[in-house]
């Protein structure tokens, strides 16, 4: 691993278009500003790792699944993407909010 010393407000360039700037230092906490083009995904590593580990565990799913809608749950929309079987049309999602919003 390359290790560089930086002071407050100093920057590290990675490639031509990624910049890491030390914006604040307080005790054992360092705040880093990141400038990167949109196609570069930037995440806290522990979040990324947690999702990856959860994927790996879930890939080993064993045992039975409740087959039907669980009792006591409100009946929500049936998920629209249902590619099982021949000749069944892919259903369009129901109208309205599907839990997605743009962060732009």
């Amino acid at each position, binding site marked *: 691993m390359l290790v560089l010393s930086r002071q407050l407000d100093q920057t590290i360039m990675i490639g031509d278009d990624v910049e890491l700037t030390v914006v604040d230092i307080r005790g054992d906490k360092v705040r880093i500003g990141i400038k990167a083009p*949109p*196609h570069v*995904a930037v*995440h*806290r590593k522990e*979040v*990324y790792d*947690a*999702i*990856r*580990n*959860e*994927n*790996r*565990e*879930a*890939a080993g*799913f*064993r*045992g*039975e*699944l*409740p*087959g*039907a*809608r*669980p009792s006591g*749950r409100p009946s*929500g*929309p*049936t*998920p*629209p*993407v*249902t*590619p*099982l*079987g*021949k*000749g069944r049309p*892919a259903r*369009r*999602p129901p*109208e309205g909010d*599907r*839990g*997605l*919003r*743009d*962060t*732009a």
Partner: protein
Amino acid sequence: MIVQTTRFATLEIDDARILEFPNGLLGFSSYRRFALLQPDDQSVFFWLQSLEAPDLAFVVTDPGLWVPDYAAQIRPEQSADLGLADPSDAQVLVIVNRRDEVLTANLQGPLLVNVRTCRGLQIVMAERRWNVRHELMKVGAAAPRLRATA
């Protein structure tokens, strides 16, 4: 296409219903093509079966059925990746895991599928509000029923 699977023996899947995850899933970047299998019309759980690895299948569900205020945030470049012209063309799914007798869902790394193009993407949610092990329910008894061509 005919797909060999470990859990469901041999399945016949309409080519038009295959989901493509160009980047794979986190930790599984080399597996890109999946079929979404619905155990039955009433099931809220689905299997996301790899078409490339017979033994790789994830249980997924629609988070909106469990967490009404759940919202996946998509960045503009991710929309572009998916070819999403309209956010309402995206179906959100979350991966389900089982710990002992409890089913949990990964709300921090949801899957977004463009229902028009069948392209999908797993995203990382920065919001700390959602976690990777959101409890859904205790496990009941009934097994999934899959229509398989054995």
